[in-house]
Protein backbone atom coordinates (compact mmCIF):
# COMPACT_ATOMS: atom_id res chain seq x y z
CA UNK A 1 0.00 0.00 0.00
CA UNK A 2 1.61 3.18 -1.20
CA UNK A 3 -0.22 6.40 -0.48
CA UNK A 4 0.38 8.99 -3.20
CA UNK A 5 0.79 12.56 -2.12
CA UNK A 6 -0.08 15.75 -3.93
CA UNK A 7 2.54 18.52 -3.52
CA UNK A 8 5.18 16.26 -1.99
CA UNK A 9 8.35 17.67 -0.32
CA UNK A 10 10.17 14.49 -1.22
CA UNK A 11 9.49 12.42 -4.29
CA UNK A 12 11.37 9.24 -5.14
CA UNK A 13 10.80 7.66 -8.49
CA UNK A 14 11.85 4.13 -9.47
CA UNK A 15 15.07 4.21 -7.45
CA UNK A 16 17.38 1.20 -7.79
CA UNK A 17 20.68 1.01 -5.93
CA UNK A 18 23.28 -1.73 -5.86
CA UNK A 19 26.32 -2.46 -3.78
CA UNK A 20 28.95 -4.04 -5.98
CA UNK A 21 26.92 -6.44 -8.09
CA UNK A 22 24.10 -6.97 -5.60
CA UNK A 23 21.06 -4.72 -5.84
CA UNK A 24 20.17 -3.51 -2.34
CA UNK A 25 17.15 -1.42 -3.27
CA UNK A 26 14.68 -2.24 -6.04
CA UNK A 27 12.35 0.21 -7.78
CA UNK A 28 11.64 2.38 -4.76
CA UNK A 29 8.81 4.73 -5.58
CA UNK A 30 7.08 6.94 -3.00
CA UNK A 31 6.44 10.50 -1.96
CA UNK A 32 6.18 12.33 1.35
CA UNK A 33 3.93 15.22 2.36
CA UNK A 34 5.20 18.30 4.15
CA UNK A 35 5.58 18.25 7.94
CA UNK A 36 5.44 14.54 8.67
CA UNK A 37 7.53 12.63 11.16
CA UNK A 38 8.21 9.56 9.06
CA UNK A 39 9.76 6.28 10.18
CA UNK A 40 11.51 3.92 7.78
CA UNK A 41 11.15 0.42 9.17
CA UNK A 42 12.23 -2.98 7.95
CA UNK A 43 14.44 -5.92 8.95
CA UNK A 44 18.25 -5.80 9.09
CA UNK A 45 19.72 -5.55 5.64
CA UNK A 46 16.49 -4.21 4.18
CA UNK A 47 18.32 -1.19 2.78
CA UNK A 48 16.95 1.43 5.21
CA UNK A 49 20.25 3.27 5.65
CA UNK A 50 21.09 2.84 1.98
CA UNK A 51 17.81 4.48 1.06
CA UNK A 52 18.59 7.71 2.88
CA UNK A 53 22.22 7.63 1.70
CA UNK A 54 20.98 7.28 -1.86
CA UNK A 55 18.57 10.19 -1.33
CA UNK A 56 21.48 12.30 0.01
CA UNK A 57 23.55 11.39 -3.03
CA UNK A 58 26.12 9.47 -0.97
CA UNK A 59 25.54 6.27 -2.97
CA UNK A 60 25.51 5.90 -6.73
CA UNK A 61 22.09 4.95 -8.02
CA UNK A 62 21.52 2.62 -10.96
CA UNK A 63 18.26 4.16 -12.03
CA UNK A 64 15.52 6.47 -10.90
CA UNK A 65 15.62 9.92 -9.40
CA UNK A 66 15.01 11.89 -6.22
CA UNK A 67 13.34 15.27 -6.12
CA UNK A 68 13.17 17.47 -3.06
CA UNK A 69 11.03 20.60 -3.06
CA UNK A 70 10.58 19.77 -6.73
CA UNK A 71 14.32 20.31 -7.34
CA UNK A 72 17.53 18.36 -7.74
CA UNK A 73 19.23 17.42 -4.47
CA UNK A 74 22.26 19.61 -5.12
CA UNK A 75 20.12 22.69 -5.69
CA UNK A 76 18.49 22.43 -2.25
CA UNK A 77 21.29 20.83 -0.22
CA UNK A 78 21.43 23.76 2.22
CA UNK A 79 17.87 22.97 3.31
CA UNK A 80 18.59 19.30 3.98
CA UNK A 81 20.19 17.82 7.06
CA UNK A 82 21.62 14.32 7.33
CA UNK A 83 22.48 12.58 10.60
CA UNK A 84 24.68 9.51 9.97
CA UNK A 85 24.75 6.52 12.28
CA UNK A 86 26.62 7.30 15.46
CA UNK A 87 28.96 4.34 14.93
CA UNK A 88 30.05 5.65 11.54
CA UNK A 89 32.56 8.10 13.03
CA UNK A 90 35.60 7.91 15.28
CA UNK A 91 34.62 9.42 18.63
CA UNK A 92 38.28 9.57 19.68
CA UNK A 93 38.67 12.47 17.26
CA UNK A 94 40.21 15.43 19.13
CA UNK A 95 37.18 17.69 19.38
CA UNK A 96 34.70 18.97 21.95
CA UNK A 97 30.92 18.64 21.76
CA UNK A 98 30.74 22.29 20.69
CA UNK A 99 33.29 21.72 17.90
CA UNK A 100 31.09 19.00 16.42
CA UNK A 101 27.88 21.04 16.66
CA UNK A 102 29.69 23.97 14.97
CA UNK A 103 30.16 21.69 11.95
CA UNK A 104 26.41 22.08 11.40
CA UNK A 105 27.06 25.71 10.44
CA UNK A 106 29.80 24.99 7.88
CA UNK A 107 27.52 24.66 4.86
CA UNK A 108 26.47 28.29 5.15
CA UNK A 109 30.05 29.55 5.39
CA UNK A 110 31.40 28.50 2.04
CA UNK A 111 34.97 27.68 1.14
CA UNK A 112 37.83 29.29 3.12
CA UNK A 113 35.53 31.05 5.62
CA UNK A 114 35.76 30.14 9.26
CA UNK A 115 32.96 29.98 11.83
CA UNK A 116 32.78 33.04 14.08
CA UNK A 117 30.80 34.33 17.03
CA UNK A 118 27.40 34.05 15.37
CA UNK A 119 27.99 30.38 14.51
CA UNK A 120 29.20 29.66 18.04
CA UNK A 121 26.10 31.21 19.59
CA UNK A 122 23.87 29.15 17.32
CA UNK A 123 25.77 25.98 18.22
CA UNK A 124 25.40 26.71 21.95
CA UNK A 125 21.65 27.25 21.51
CA UNK A 126 21.35 23.92 19.70
CA UNK A 127 23.20 22.13 22.49
CA UNK A 128 20.69 23.65 24.93
CA UNK A 129 17.81 22.22 22.91
CA UNK A 130 19.12 18.68 23.46
CA UNK A 131 19.88 19.36 27.16
CA UNK A 132 23.63 19.23 26.63
CA UNK A 133 24.70 22.78 27.56
CA UNK A 134 26.73 21.46 30.49
CA UNK A 135 28.82 19.37 28.15
CA UNK A 136 29.79 21.87 25.46
CA UNK A 137 33.52 21.76 26.24
CA UNK A 138 33.60 18.04 26.98
CA UNK A 139 35.85 15.92 24.77
CA UNK A 140 33.53 13.78 22.62
CA UNK A 141 35.17 10.47 23.58
CA UNK A 142 34.18 11.17 27.20
CA UNK A 143 30.48 11.33 26.32
CA UNK A 144 28.08 8.40 26.69
CA UNK A 145 26.42 6.91 23.61
CA UNK A 146 23.23 8.84 24.32
CA UNK A 147 25.12 12.09 24.78
CA UNK A 148 27.03 11.54 21.54
CA UNK A 149 23.74 11.03 19.73
CA UNK A 150 22.42 14.27 21.25
CA UNK A 151 25.51 16.05 19.92
CA UNK A 152 24.72 14.69 16.45
CA UNK A 153 21.11 15.89 16.74
CA UNK A 154 22.34 19.31 17.91
CA UNK A 155 24.63 19.47 14.89
CA UNK A 156 21.63 18.75 12.65
CA UNK A 157 19.64 21.51 14.42
CA UNK A 158 22.49 23.93 13.76
CA UNK A 159 21.98 23.32 10.06
CA UNK A 160 18.56 25.03 10.35
CA UNK A 161 17.27 22.78 7.57
CA UNK A 162 13.73 22.05 6.39
CA UNK A 163 14.10 18.30 5.90
CA UNK A 164 16.01 16.02 8.26
CA UNK A 165 17.19 12.49 7.48
CA UNK A 166 18.34 10.57 10.56
CA UNK A 167 19.97 7.16 10.46
CA UNK A 168 19.09 5.11 13.56
CA UNK A 169 19.14 7.99 16.06
CA UNK A 170 17.72 5.70 18.76
CA UNK A 171 20.27 2.89 18.37
CA UNK A 172 22.13 2.22 21.61
CA UNK A 173 20.89 5.27 23.48
CA UNK A 174 19.40 5.44 26.97
CA UNK A 175 15.63 5.85 27.42
CA UNK A 176 15.86 9.48 28.56
CA UNK A 177 17.81 10.41 25.43
CA UNK A 178 15.27 8.57 23.30
CA UNK A 179 12.42 10.52 24.91
CA UNK A 180 14.25 13.83 24.58
CA UNK A 181 14.90 13.22 20.90
CA UNK A 182 11.35 12.06 20.16
CA UNK A 183 9.85 15.13 21.85
CA UNK A 184 12.25 17.34 19.91
CA UNK A 185 11.40 15.69 16.59
CA UNK A 186 7.68 16.05 17.26
CA UNK A 187 8.17 19.72 18.04
CA UNK A 188 10.21 20.17 14.87
CA UNK A 189 7.47 18.72 12.68
CA UNK A 190 4.93 20.97 14.43
CA UNK A 191 7.12 23.88 13.38
CA UNK A 192 6.84 22.78 9.77
CA UNK A 193 9.97 20.65 9.39
CA UNK A 194 9.84 17.24 7.76
CA UNK A 195 11.75 14.49 9.56
CA UNK A 196 12.57 11.03 8.20
CA UNK A 197 14.02 8.54 10.65
CA UNK A 198 15.47 5.07 10.09
CA UNK A 199 14.10 3.03 12.96
CA UNK A 200 14.48 -0.60 13.98
CA UNK A 201 11.85 -1.01 16.68
CA UNK A 202 8.34 -1.76 15.35
CA UNK A 203 6.75 -1.48 18.78
CA UNK A 204 7.62 2.17 19.36
CA UNK A 205 7.12 3.08 15.71
CA UNK A 206 3.36 3.57 16.05
CA UNK A 207 3.84 5.98 18.96
CA UNK A 208 6.65 7.99 17.39
CA UNK A 209 5.71 8.44 13.75
CA UNK A 210 2.67 9.72 11.90
CA UNK A 211 3.96 8.32 8.58
CA UNK A 212 5.52 4.92 8.01
CA UNK A 213 7.67 3.66 5.17
CA UNK A 214 8.09 -0.12 5.16
CA UNK A 215 11.04 -1.45 3.33
CA UNK A 216 12.54 -4.82 2.55
CA UNK A 217 14.67 -4.35 -0.58
CA UNK A 218 11.38 -3.45 -2.24
CA UNK A 219 9.07 -0.80 -0.93
CA UNK A 220 6.26 -2.57 0.92
CA UNK A 221 4.24 0.39 2.10
CA UNK A 222 4.27 4.13 2.57
CA UNK A 223 1.45 6.03 4.21
CA UNK A 224 -0.05 7.45 7.42
CA UNK A 225 0.75 5.24 10.39
CA UNK A 226 -2.86 4.31 11.19
CA UNK A 227 -3.44 3.11 7.63
CA UNK A 228 -0.17 1.33 7.04
CA UNK A 229 0.77 -0.30 10.31
CA UNK A 230 -1.25 -3.47 9.79
CA UNK A 231 -0.36 -7.03 10.62
CA UNK A 232 -0.50 -7.99 6.96
CA UNK A 233 1.97 -5.32 5.84
CA UNK A 234 4.27 -5.99 8.78
CA UNK A 235 4.33 -9.64 7.76
CA UNK A 236 5.11 -8.69 4.22
CA UNK A 237 7.96 -6.48 5.40
CA UNK A 238 9.52 -8.67 8.00
CA UNK A 239 8.73 -11.84 6.08
CA UNK A 240 9.91 -15.18 7.41
CA UNK A 241 10.18 -14.85 11.14
CA UNK A 242 7.00 -12.99 11.95
CA UNK A 243 5.05 -15.04 9.45
CA UNK A 244 6.27 -18.26 11.04
CA UNK A 245 5.28 -17.06 14.51
CA UNK A 246 1.77 -16.12 13.39
CA UNK A 247 1.40 -19.46 11.59
CA UNK A 248 2.15 -21.15 14.89
CA UNK A 249 -0.45 -18.88 16.48
CA UNK A 250 -3.04 -19.91 13.90
CA UNK A 251 -2.28 -23.59 14.43
CA UNK A 252 -2.67 -23.20 18.15
CA UNK A 253 -6.08 -21.54 17.67
CA UNK A 254 -7.32 -24.14 15.22
CA UNK A 255 -6.40 -27.24 17.12
CA UNK A 256 -6.98 -25.92 20.59
CA UNK A 257 -3.37 -26.79 21.33
CA UNK A 258 -2.19 -25.22 24.55
CA UNK A 259 1.51 -25.59 25.28
CA UNK A 260 0.98 -24.63 28.92
CA UNK A 261 -1.35 -27.56 29.58
CA UNK A 262 0.72 -30.23 27.83
Amino acid at each position, binding site marked *: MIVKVTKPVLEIHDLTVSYGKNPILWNIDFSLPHGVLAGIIGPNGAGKSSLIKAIMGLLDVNSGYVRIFDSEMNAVRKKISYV*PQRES*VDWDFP*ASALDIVMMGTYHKLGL*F*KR*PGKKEKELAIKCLEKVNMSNFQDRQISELSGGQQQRVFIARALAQEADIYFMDEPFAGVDISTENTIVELLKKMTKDGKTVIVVHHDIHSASRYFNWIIMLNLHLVASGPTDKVLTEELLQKTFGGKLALLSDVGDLIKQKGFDPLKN
Partner: protein
Amino acid sequence: MTFDHNAFLIIITGALIAISCGLLGTFLILRRMAMIGDAISHAVLPGIVLAFLFSQQREGIAVIIGAGVLGIIATLIIDYLSTKIKLQHDASIGVTFTWLFAIGIILITLFAGQIDLDQDCVLYGEIAYIPIDLWILPNGTIMGPRVLYVALINVILVIFFIMYLFKELKITSFDAEFASSIGISTGIINLSLMGMVSYTTVSSFEAVGAILVLALLVVPPATAYLLTSNLKRMILYTLIIGVFTSLIGYYVAYYINGSIAGAMAGVSGIFLLFAIIYSNFAKRIIIFSKA
Protein backbone atom coordinates in the same frame (compact mmCIF):
# COMPACT_ATOMS: atom_id res chain seq x y z
CA MET B 1 77.75 22.86 22.92
CA THR B 2 78.65 24.42 19.63
CA PHE B 3 76.42 26.74 17.76
CA ASP B 4 77.76 27.89 14.44
CA HIS B 5 76.29 29.10 11.20
CA ASN B 6 76.15 25.63 9.66
CA ALA B 7 74.44 24.10 12.69
CA PHE B 8 71.87 26.87 12.56
CA LEU B 9 71.12 26.22 8.87
CA ILE B 10 70.73 22.50 9.37
CA ILE B 11 68.51 22.88 12.42
CA ILE B 12 66.32 25.52 10.75
CA THR B 13 65.90 23.41 7.62
CA GLY B 14 65.07 20.35 9.72
CA ALA B 15 62.56 22.37 11.74
CA LEU B 16 60.88 23.78 8.62
CA ILE B 17 60.49 20.30 7.17
CA ALA B 18 59.21 19.05 10.53
CA ILE B 19 56.56 21.80 10.49
CA SER B 20 55.37 20.99 6.94
CA CYS B 21 55.27 17.28 7.63
CA GLY B 22 53.67 17.70 11.05
CA LEU B 23 50.83 19.88 9.76
CA LEU B 24 49.94 17.40 7.02
CA GLY B 25 50.68 14.36 9.20
CA THR B 26 48.15 15.52 11.81
CA PHE B 27 45.36 15.07 9.26
CA LEU B 28 46.81 11.81 7.92
CA ILE B 29 46.73 10.38 11.45
CA LEU B 30 43.18 11.57 12.09
CA ARG B 31 42.08 10.00 8.79
CA ARG B 32 43.82 6.75 9.72
CA MET B 33 45.96 7.23 6.67
CA ALA B 34 49.42 7.41 8.22
CA MET B 35 50.63 4.63 5.95
CA ILE B 36 49.38 6.52 2.90
CA GLY B 37 52.21 8.99 3.52
CA ASP B 38 54.61 6.06 3.38
CA ALA B 39 52.96 4.74 0.23
CA ILE B 40 52.93 8.09 -1.55
CA SER B 41 56.56 8.77 -0.76
CA HIS B 42 57.46 5.58 -2.65
CA ALA B 43 54.84 5.86 -5.37
CA VAL B 44 56.17 9.24 -6.55
CA LEU B 45 59.43 7.69 -7.80
CA PRO B 46 58.30 7.08 -11.42
CA GLY B 47 57.00 10.65 -11.50
CA ILE B 48 60.39 11.95 -10.41
CA VAL B 49 62.24 9.83 -12.95
CA LEU B 50 59.96 10.81 -15.86
CA ALA B 51 60.04 14.48 -14.95
CA PHE B 52 63.81 14.26 -14.73
CA LEU B 53 64.04 12.57 -18.13
CA PHE B 54 62.01 15.33 -19.75
CA SER B 55 63.46 18.32 -17.96
CA GLN B 56 67.02 17.04 -17.39
CA GLN B 57 66.98 18.81 -14.05
CA ARG B 58 67.06 17.10 -10.72
CA GLU B 59 65.85 20.15 -8.90
CA GLY B 60 63.04 22.31 -9.94
CA ILE B 61 59.37 22.54 -10.59
CA ALA B 62 59.13 19.66 -13.11
CA VAL B 63 60.17 17.06 -10.55
CA ILE B 64 57.72 18.46 -8.00
CA ILE B 65 54.89 18.36 -10.53
CA GLY B 66 55.85 14.84 -11.66
CA ALA B 67 55.82 13.68 -8.08
CA GLY B 68 52.56 15.47 -7.30
CA VAL B 69 50.81 13.88 -10.27
CA LEU B 70 52.05 10.40 -9.32
CA GLY B 71 51.00 10.97 -5.70
CA ILE B 72 47.48 11.77 -6.86
CA ILE B 73 47.46 8.83 -9.29
CA ALA B 74 48.56 6.56 -6.44
CA THR B 75 45.72 7.90 -4.26
CA LEU B 76 43.21 7.29 -7.07
CA ILE B 77 44.45 3.74 -7.65
CA ILE B 78 44.26 2.99 -3.91
CA ASP B 79 40.72 4.42 -3.78
CA TYR B 80 39.68 2.47 -6.84
CA LEU B 81 41.05 -0.83 -5.53
CA SER B 82 39.50 -0.45 -2.10
CA THR B 83 36.09 1.06 -2.94
CA LYS B 84 35.28 -0.32 -6.41
CA ILE B 85 37.21 -3.61 -6.50
CA LYS B 86 36.60 -4.11 -2.75
CA LEU B 87 40.16 -5.14 -2.00
CA GLN B 88 41.04 -4.45 1.65
CA HIS B 89 42.28 -0.91 2.17
CA ASP B 90 45.71 -1.86 3.53
CA ALA B 91 46.17 -4.41 0.75
CA SER B 92 45.28 -1.73 -1.80
CA ILE B 93 47.97 0.54 -0.36
CA GLY B 94 50.54 -2.26 -0.30
CA VAL B 95 49.89 -3.29 -3.90
CA THR B 96 49.84 0.24 -5.30
CA PHE B 97 52.97 1.72 -3.85
CA THR B 98 55.22 -1.29 -4.34
CA TRP B 99 54.10 -1.53 -7.95
CA LEU B 100 54.67 2.16 -8.68
CA PHE B 101 57.99 2.11 -6.83
CA ALA B 102 59.02 -0.90 -8.94
CA ILE B 103 58.18 0.99 -12.12
CA GLY B 104 60.34 3.82 -10.85
CA ILE B 105 63.26 1.46 -10.23
CA ILE B 106 62.85 -0.09 -13.71
CA LEU B 107 62.81 3.37 -15.28
CA ILE B 108 66.00 4.31 -13.43
CA THR B 109 67.81 1.18 -14.58
CA LEU B 110 66.49 1.53 -18.17
CA PHE B 111 67.75 5.05 -18.46
CA ALA B 112 70.68 4.61 -16.14
CA GLY B 113 73.03 6.40 -18.51
CA GLN B 114 70.88 9.46 -18.64
CA ILE B 115 69.89 9.77 -15.02
CA ASP B 116 72.09 10.92 -12.23
CA LEU B 117 69.74 9.81 -9.49
CA ASP B 118 71.38 8.43 -6.42
CA GLN B 119 68.99 6.04 -4.66
CA ASP B 120 70.95 6.26 -1.46
CA CYS B 121 70.47 9.98 -1.52
CA VAL B 122 66.71 9.56 -1.96
CA LEU B 123 66.48 7.08 0.90
CA TYR B 124 68.79 8.65 3.42
CA GLY B 125 69.23 12.22 2.19
CA GLU B 126 72.09 14.26 3.44
CA ILE B 127 71.09 17.09 5.63
CA ALA B 128 74.73 17.76 6.51
CA TYR B 129 75.37 19.03 2.97
CA ILE B 130 72.77 21.78 3.26
CA PRO B 131 75.26 24.57 4.02
CA ILE B 132 77.47 23.78 1.00
CA ASP B 133 74.66 23.34 -1.55
CA LEU B 134 74.20 27.00 -2.40
CA TRP B 135 71.75 28.83 -4.58
CA ILE B 136 73.81 31.04 -6.86
CA LEU B 137 72.18 33.57 -9.16
CA PRO B 138 73.36 33.75 -12.82
CA ASN B 139 75.24 36.97 -12.02
CA GLY B 140 77.17 35.19 -9.32
CA THR B 141 75.36 36.45 -6.23
CA ILE B 142 75.24 33.77 -3.52
CA MET B 143 71.76 33.60 -2.06
CA GLY B 144 72.47 30.99 0.62
CA PRO B 145 71.61 27.29 0.95
CA ARG B 146 69.26 26.18 -1.84
CA VAL B 147 67.49 23.55 0.23
CA LEU B 148 66.59 26.11 2.87
CA TYR B 149 64.65 28.07 0.24
CA VAL B 150 62.97 24.90 -1.00
CA ALA B 151 61.90 24.06 2.56
CA LEU B 152 60.77 27.62 3.20
CA ILE B 153 58.55 27.74 0.11
CA ASN B 154 57.13 24.34 1.04
CA VAL B 155 56.31 25.36 4.60
CA ILE B 156 54.61 28.57 3.47
CA LEU B 157 52.42 26.68 0.98
CA VAL B 158 51.55 24.01 3.53
CA ILE B 159 50.60 26.62 6.13
CA PHE B 160 48.33 28.38 3.61
CA PHE B 161 46.82 25.06 2.61
CA ILE B 162 46.01 24.09 6.19
CA MET B 163 44.79 27.57 7.17
CA TYR B 164 42.43 28.01 4.25
CA LEU B 165 41.09 24.47 4.21
CA PHE B 166 41.13 23.89 7.97
CA LYS B 167 37.38 23.59 8.35
CA GLU B 168 37.08 21.30 5.31
CA LEU B 169 40.00 19.12 6.41
CA LYS B 170 38.56 18.88 9.92
CA ILE B 171 35.03 17.94 8.89
CA THR B 172 36.08 15.43 6.21
CA SER B 173 38.48 13.81 8.68
CA PHE B 174 35.83 13.44 11.37
CA ASP B 175 32.71 12.63 9.37
CA ALA B 176 33.15 12.26 5.61
CA GLU B 177 29.52 11.26 5.02
CA PHE B 178 28.21 14.32 6.78
CA ALA B 179 30.72 16.48 4.90
CA SER B 180 29.46 15.08 1.58
CA SER B 181 25.87 15.58 2.69
CA ILE B 182 26.44 19.34 3.06
CA GLY B 183 28.04 19.50 -0.37
CA ILE B 184 31.75 19.43 0.52
CA SER B 185 33.63 17.40 -2.06
CA THR B 186 35.43 14.93 0.18
CA GLY B 187 37.22 13.45 -2.84
CA ILE B 188 38.76 16.76 -3.88
CA ILE B 189 39.78 17.62 -0.31
CA ASN B 190 41.39 14.19 0.01
CA LEU B 191 43.22 14.48 -3.30
CA SER B 192 44.50 17.95 -2.51
CA LEU B 193 45.78 16.71 0.85
CA MET B 194 47.52 13.81 -0.93
CA GLY B 195 48.91 16.22 -3.52
CA MET B 196 50.39 18.33 -0.73
CA VAL B 197 51.80 15.21 0.95
CA SER B 198 53.44 14.19 -2.37
CA TYR B 199 54.88 17.65 -2.89
CA THR B 200 56.15 17.88 0.67
CA THR B 201 57.79 14.46 0.70
CA VAL B 202 59.56 15.10 -2.61
CA SER B 203 60.57 18.60 -1.62
CA SER B 204 62.03 17.25 1.62
CA PHE B 205 63.60 14.03 0.32
CA GLU B 206 66.85 15.46 -0.95
CA ALA B 207 67.34 17.46 2.21
CA VAL B 208 66.63 14.88 4.86
CA GLY B 209 65.87 11.57 3.11
CA ALA B 210 62.76 9.42 2.94
CA ILE B 211 63.12 7.85 6.37
CA LEU B 212 63.15 11.16 8.24
CA VAL B 213 60.31 12.55 6.11
CA LEU B 214 58.17 9.54 6.98
CA ALA B 215 59.11 9.81 10.65
CA LEU B 216 58.24 13.51 10.70
CA LEU B 217 54.90 12.86 8.96
CA VAL B 218 53.77 10.35 11.54
CA VAL B 219 55.69 10.42 14.81
CA PRO B 220 55.24 14.04 16.04
CA PRO B 221 51.47 14.07 15.26
CA ALA B 222 51.08 10.65 16.91
CA THR B 223 52.94 11.98 19.96
CA ALA B 224 50.73 15.08 20.10
CA TYR B 225 47.60 12.92 19.68
CA LEU B 226 48.49 11.13 22.92
CA LEU B 227 48.95 14.41 24.78
CA THR B 228 45.74 16.29 23.99
CA SER B 229 42.17 15.92 22.81
CA ASN B 230 41.93 19.33 21.18
CA LEU B 231 42.72 19.56 17.47
CA LYS B 232 44.33 23.00 17.54
CA ARG B 233 46.46 22.04 20.54
CA MET B 234 47.37 18.79 18.79
CA ILE B 235 48.70 20.83 15.86
CA LEU B 236 50.56 23.21 18.19
CA TYR B 237 52.21 20.33 20.09
CA THR B 238 53.11 18.66 16.79
CA LEU B 239 54.95 21.80 15.69
CA ILE B 240 56.78 22.21 19.01
CA ILE B 241 57.79 18.54 19.02
CA GLY B 242 58.93 18.81 15.40
CA VAL B 243 61.14 21.82 16.07
CA PHE B 244 62.70 20.22 19.15
CA THR B 245 63.20 16.98 17.23
CA SER B 246 65.34 18.89 14.76
CA LEU B 247 67.25 20.79 17.44
CA ILE B 248 67.97 17.89 19.78
CA GLY B 249 68.48 15.46 16.89
CA TYR B 250 71.22 17.65 15.47
CA TYR B 251 73.17 17.77 18.73
CA VAL B 252 72.72 14.06 19.38
CA ALA B 253 74.22 13.42 15.94
CA TYR B 254 76.97 15.90 16.67
CA TYR B 255 77.98 14.22 19.92
CA ILE B 256 77.78 10.65 18.68
CA ASN B 257 79.22 11.73 15.33
CA GLY B 258 76.42 9.90 13.51
CA SER B 259 73.77 10.49 10.86
CA ILE B 260 71.83 13.67 11.50
CA ALA B 261 68.62 12.45 9.83
CA GLY B 262 68.88 9.19 11.77
CA ALA B 263 69.39 11.00 15.05
CA MET B 264 66.41 13.29 14.38
CA ALA B 265 64.14 10.34 13.58
CA GLY B 266 65.44 8.58 16.68
CA VAL B 267 64.74 11.60 18.89
CA SER B 268 61.18 11.80 17.59
CA GLY B 269 60.72 8.18 18.68
CA ILE B 270 61.97 9.04 22.15
CA PHE B 271 59.46 11.90 22.37
CA LEU B 272 56.74 9.39 21.51
CA LEU B 273 57.97 7.09 24.27
CA PHE B 274 57.72 9.95 26.79
CA ALA B 275 54.19 10.69 25.58
CA ILE B 276 53.19 7.04 26.02
CA ILE B 277 54.56 7.03 29.56
CA TYR B 278 52.88 10.37 30.31
CA SER B 279 49.49 9.48 28.85
CA ASN B 280 49.38 6.15 30.68
CA PHE B 281 50.48 7.80 33.88
CA ALA B 282 47.91 10.58 33.53
CA LYS B 283 45.13 8.07 32.87
CA ARG B 284 46.06 6.11 35.97
CA ILE B 285 45.95 9.26 38.06
CA ILE B 286 42.47 10.04 36.70
CA ILE B 287 41.27 6.53 37.49
CA PHE B 288 42.87 6.74 40.93
CA SER B 289 41.29 10.10 41.73
CA LYS B 290 37.87 8.90 40.57
CA ALA B 291 38.05 5.74 42.68
